[in-house]
């Protein structure tokens, strides 16, 4: 069975007011699909972190969510500037977020590390033109 597209939403750079909107829409959708609450929680956390990452670090991008009977796939695509050192970005506590963002309570450096923790597979491609993060959560 082909993967169904559940969500395809634009995420704007610096748009903290809407931060979390895509992940709450995802949660609602997954609840309507009657998925296990533990899976929904994982997907919410991952979608939220990726959404906030686009807002803080990129020039804007999209969050897509696809689903099949076996898996939820969350894809975050942005238009740069790219992650300089992916390995470092996955270290708990490492953050390149500015003070302004940290004061809002974001950018504690748990983002990508949290995504990895709650995912079953994760793949990051990044260059100065943009970053694509693909995260799979298995049922």
């Amino acid at each position, binding site marked *: 069975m082909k993967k*169904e597209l*559940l969500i395809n939403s634009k995420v704007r750079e610096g748009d903290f007011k809407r931060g*979390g909107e895509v*992940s*709450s829409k995802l*949660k609602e*959708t997954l609840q*309507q*699909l*009657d998925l296990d*609450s*533990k899976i*929904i*929680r994982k997907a*919410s*956390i991952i979608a*939220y*972190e990726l959404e906030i990452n686009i807002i803080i670090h990129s020039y804007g991008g999209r969050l897509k969510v696809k*689903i099949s*009977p076996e898996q939820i796939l969350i894809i975050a695509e942005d238009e740069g500037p790219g992650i300089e050192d992916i390995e470092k970005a996955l270290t708990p506590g490492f953050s390149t977020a500015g003070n302004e963002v940290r004061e809002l*309570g974001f950018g*504690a450096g*748990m983002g990508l590390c*949290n995504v990895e923790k709650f995912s079953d597979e994760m793949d990051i491609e990044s260059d100065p033109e943009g970053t694509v993060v693909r995260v799979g959560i298995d049922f």
Partner: protein
Amino acid sequence: MDKTHSVFLVEEECEGCTNCVKNCPTKAIRVHQGQASIKDEYCIDCAACIRNCEYHAKEALTTDLEEALAREDNIVLIPPSFYAQLPPDYNLSKIKQKLISLGFAGAVNVSIGATVYSAWLKNILNNKESGEPLISSACPVVVRYIRLLYPELLDLVVKYDSPLEITVKLINEALKDKFSDQDFDFYFITPCPAKHTAVYYPPGKKNSFLSGAIGVDDIYNPILKADSNGGNLEVQSYLDEIEKGFPFISALAWGRAGGEEENLDKDNGGKIIKVDGLERIKLVLDDLENDNLRGIDYLEMTACPGGCLGGVLNIINPFQGIVNLEKAISQEYEEIGDNGADEKATDVNYIESFEQPEIMPDKDKAGSFETALARWQALEAEKDELPGLDCAACGAPDCATLAEDIVDGYAERVDCIFMLRQEVEMLANRMSELVGTLPPAMGRDAKEAIGQDEKEDADDEK
């Protein structure tokens, strides 16, 4: 009690407006045929509809006072918020005396259970690793709200009896020691419908230790009118002795938002926050769900703004209530004094009887992944059709909910007045088209008419 909630509709008072529908935090109400109806599996007894109905068509089911008074060995339990409802000269002993002249065998202060709860929790929190915060189980509405809308956070709800259940269990055990041949019944004075429901469906357990919950509004006048003396004080003086063993005065603050937090905060580093009102609770739970809360160990959550003082059955507004409760607390300190019982509560070996909170009927499951996906697709398509004005004229709170009702077969698309208008418009256009069409003999172009007839014949043959 045949339903799983105590909020009910007084049919003859309902005007069929949609105020309750729009203000329900769990979208549990629909208005159909001029009457509001509650979907049992969604009602969490938060009483938002009772607050919002200007026709007073929503009420709370509570235990009849007469029923409680008819029992012989009946003990009444007083919540801290109740002190704030009564006139200033009603101190603890006066309230108890009045309840006894009314016909109760004894009256106990629920804050003694709160001291046991706090002591247990302090211990848990002191040994807690950092990470996700725990959530108080004291407010049954909050537990139900989480179960319904944030089931994945249910594991964070503290698995311990509520202060009310703790109080009843402790008192009952103590009474059995002295009055072994009597079988006591326990009645709570409730500020909200949820605590009445909790007598029949207690969060986290099969059976409550209580026999009923009388509404504050039902017992208020009888207390004012009751004699200030008389009655058998044998049970009461025994209960007073037990009560003195607990540092219950400071725990009276549990009656308002922040009281639970203060009673915990004394030795803890302040990683406890209070959240009152369902709207604000939603904000915090949303962030908690996204793993976006840091450095918080415990969430005191009360569904009513202002805590139990904000209960819908109370007499006094919650802000006046705060002042009254503060006064009552300092009055008790003056009269009884700090009884030095702080250590005592920590010593109580209370055996919890809390299981998993399974308190509401389960919602229908969609079945297989494919059916669920097909339902979701139908739902998205239906949402695209509907106007998105969320006017609630259809009787559902918003277009998304109407879409769900349509897909599940509980409503039709023309329940939406805009969709109905569209249908009527189409029908009207078709009608005017038809009106403009004359029979061939009266002027339709003969050639066109023949062509038309041939086509119709061909259709018939098919």
